[in-house]
């Protein structure tokens, strides 16, 4: 593996595009003109492509980059349709035109308009089934880029959806249910696939899809609250979604940066080859653990606070009298609980296999903790993760301004919060303080007691078995074997097994390769069909210059004749109408 700073030829372009990407991302969040918005959106797509393909010597990196670029342009296509629709009817590219136009058309049309924007932004955010670029782009990109992509770029998609909810006047209840269903599917599907991944960065990428699902659940119930006039539900939904957006940016960036440390030290992201890194990289291990606890939604860190607000919203919704609301609330609560449980399982596996036990393969001799300068930004992220967990009320009060945009009044957020969230959040904060103090006290007492004892180390007792190897340890796959069996109908796991023969058998092999079912049906199958269809026209590509000139002439004739044909058909239809 080449260190990033040794790849001098790539560094210039990478540094410039990184700066431009940052400027474009901020611009997208403030621009109020759809023309300029699309230019900034395109700049994000192009600069992201360039930063992803930093290590373009690898074919997989180029493939991931092109995959991202194509899907990013599908996103632009949908947004363009939406913006052009409004501009063609109003003659204005200003965002205010979207509000005035959507208010003047039937609800079904404004719902359709919102759908164009939603799909455009959902591709960037990584909602299922538009998520297929994510598991390729994140592992292919350098770790600092993966952190930015997962922490910021996919949040721009969420920002876009929220912005359109403010601009498009439509039926918020229908929109809310739609977002809620898509989000529940995204959350569950993301975490279900994350568990079976062997590549650490791919595992984290699928968790991004899961967390986008959690944010979407908050947005969904917020919209339903707005649509049905339940302002407490609206406030809690949007507050939970916005806080989880910030929280996910913090802990997911930290996870990707620590994964980058692991890659730098071990030169691999295959968790089946790792193990025992806590001994060589203790600070990275602790930082990873903090982020893993936070992403699993466990107190006392920030992930718990935002999920708690969303849960409070869902419990509030349960008191709604209508049957549909009740069923939706029950299924959403169950879904969110399942997502949280599975995320905890996944990170238990990831942390246990990567950092605990002993290495499953020989690690490079240079495998050691990264320099403090590299760890310093990660500590800053960790501090914010802890701070939000310990002082949730302060951070929630910061949300009152943006949340009030969705529910229409500045003071309502606090009314809602006083009723439900804030009253419950304060004891949570105290409990977090007590938990942290308890852990520190136990650690200090243990240290004091153990300081009097002499500690000797030796090999692990193998119950008399003397030929033990590190490969005997639990693997990542064996850890989730029961889960894989249980969820087998929903998962696509390729298995390659070589049977063992003979009295003294040779070495056996067993590989599993997780595949994405949605990708198979939505991208691979249509591409296969397209390839097979286009294969029928291969005879046209015969290498003879005369034929290529003929194709060019035929093309020019077609271009010239199409308007004439169109005009004649139009005249003929006019004639028929007159008859």
């Amino acid at each position, binding site marked *: 593996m080449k260190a990033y*700073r040794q790849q*001098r030829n790539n*560094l*210039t372009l990478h*540094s*410039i595009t*990184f*700066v*431009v990407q*940052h*400027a474009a991302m*901020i*611009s997208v969040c*403030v*621009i*109020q*003109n759809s*023309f*300029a918005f699309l230019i900034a959106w395109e700049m994000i797509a192009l600069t992201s492509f360039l930063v992803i393909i930093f290590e373009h010597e690898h074919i997989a990196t180029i493939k991931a980059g092109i995959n991202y670029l194509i899907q990013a342009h599908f996103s632009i296509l949908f947004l363009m349709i939406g913006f052009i629709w409004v501009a063609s009817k109003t003659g*204005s*590219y*200003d*965002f205010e035109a979207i509000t005035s136009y959507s208010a003047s058309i039937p609800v079904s049309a404004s719902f359709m308009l919102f759908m164009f924007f939603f799909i455009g932004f959902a591709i960037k955010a990584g909602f299922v089934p538009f998520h297929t670029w994510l598991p390729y782009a994140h592992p292919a990109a350098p770790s600092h880029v993966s952190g930015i992509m997962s922490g910021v770029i996919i949040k721009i998609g969420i920002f876009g959806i929220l912005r359109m909810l403010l601009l498009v006047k439509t039926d918020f209840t229908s929109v809310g249910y739609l977002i809620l269903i898509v989000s529940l599917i995204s959350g569950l599907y993301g975490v279900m696939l994350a568990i079976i991944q062997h590549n650490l960065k791919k595992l984290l990428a699928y968790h991004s899809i899961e967390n986008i699902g959690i944010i979407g659940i908050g947005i969904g119930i917020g919209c339903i609250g707005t649509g049905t006039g339940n302002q407490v539900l609206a406030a809690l939904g949007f507050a939970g979604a916005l806080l989880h957006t910030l929280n996910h940016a913090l802990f997911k960036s930290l996870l990707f940066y620590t994964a980058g440390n692991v890659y730098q030290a071990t030169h691999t992201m295959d968790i089946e080859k790792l193990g025992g890194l806590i001994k060589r990289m203790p600070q990275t291990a602790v930082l990873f653990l903090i982020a893993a606890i936070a992403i699993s939604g466990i107190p006392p860190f920030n992930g718990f606070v935002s999920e708690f607000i969303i849960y409070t919203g869902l419990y509030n919704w349960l008191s709604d009298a209508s049957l549909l609301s009740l069923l939706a609330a029950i299924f959403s609560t169950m879904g969110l609980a399942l997502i949280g449980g599975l995320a905890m399982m996944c990170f238990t596996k990831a942390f246990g296999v990567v950092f605990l036990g002993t290495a499953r393969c020989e690690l490079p001799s240079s495998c050691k903790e990264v320099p403090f300068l590299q760890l310093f930004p990660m500590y800053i992220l960790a501090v914010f993760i802890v701070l939000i967990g310990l002082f949730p009320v302060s951070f929630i009060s*910061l949300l009152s*301004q943006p949340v009030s*945009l969705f529910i229409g009044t500045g003071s309502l957020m606090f009314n809602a919060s006083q009723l439900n969230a804030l009253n419950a959040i304060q004891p949570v904060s105290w409990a977090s303080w007590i938990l942290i103090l308890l852990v520190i006290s136990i650690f200090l007492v243990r240290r004091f007691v153990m300081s009097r004892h002499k500690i000797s180390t030796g090999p692990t007792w193998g119950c008399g078995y003397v030929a033990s190897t590190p490969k005997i340890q639990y693997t990542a796959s064996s850890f989730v074997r029961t889960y894989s069996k249980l969820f087998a109908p929903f998962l696509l796991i390729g298995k390659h097994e070589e049977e063992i023969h003979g009295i003294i058998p040779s070495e056996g092999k067993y590989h599993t390769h997780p595949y994405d079912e949605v990708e198979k049906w939505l991208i691979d199958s249509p591409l296969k069909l397209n390839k097979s269809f286009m294969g029928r026209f291969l005879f046209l590509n015969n290498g003879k210059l005369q034929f290529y000139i003929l194709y060019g002439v035929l093309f020019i004739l077609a271009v010239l004749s199409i308007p004439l044909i169109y005009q004649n058909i139009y005249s003929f239809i006019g004639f028929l109408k007159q008859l």
Partner: protein
Amino acid sequence: MNLVIAFILVPFAGMLLIPFLKVNGKGIAAFVLLAINALISSYFAIQSLLGDAIVFTLPGSFITGDFTACFT
């Protein structure tokens, strides 16, 4: 308005400056430019979070209209 122009000029400064620097310099320059833009945008974002909406308009063309940007 000066801050907005500075924000727009920062990436251009990066394009002109970074190619002529050595490896360490490229990283430092990128970091400094990112920090400048982060500080400028944070200033507006914090103002906005505290309740002061900031709106500024850049001249556009007769097709697109003026480009309005807003921190609300």
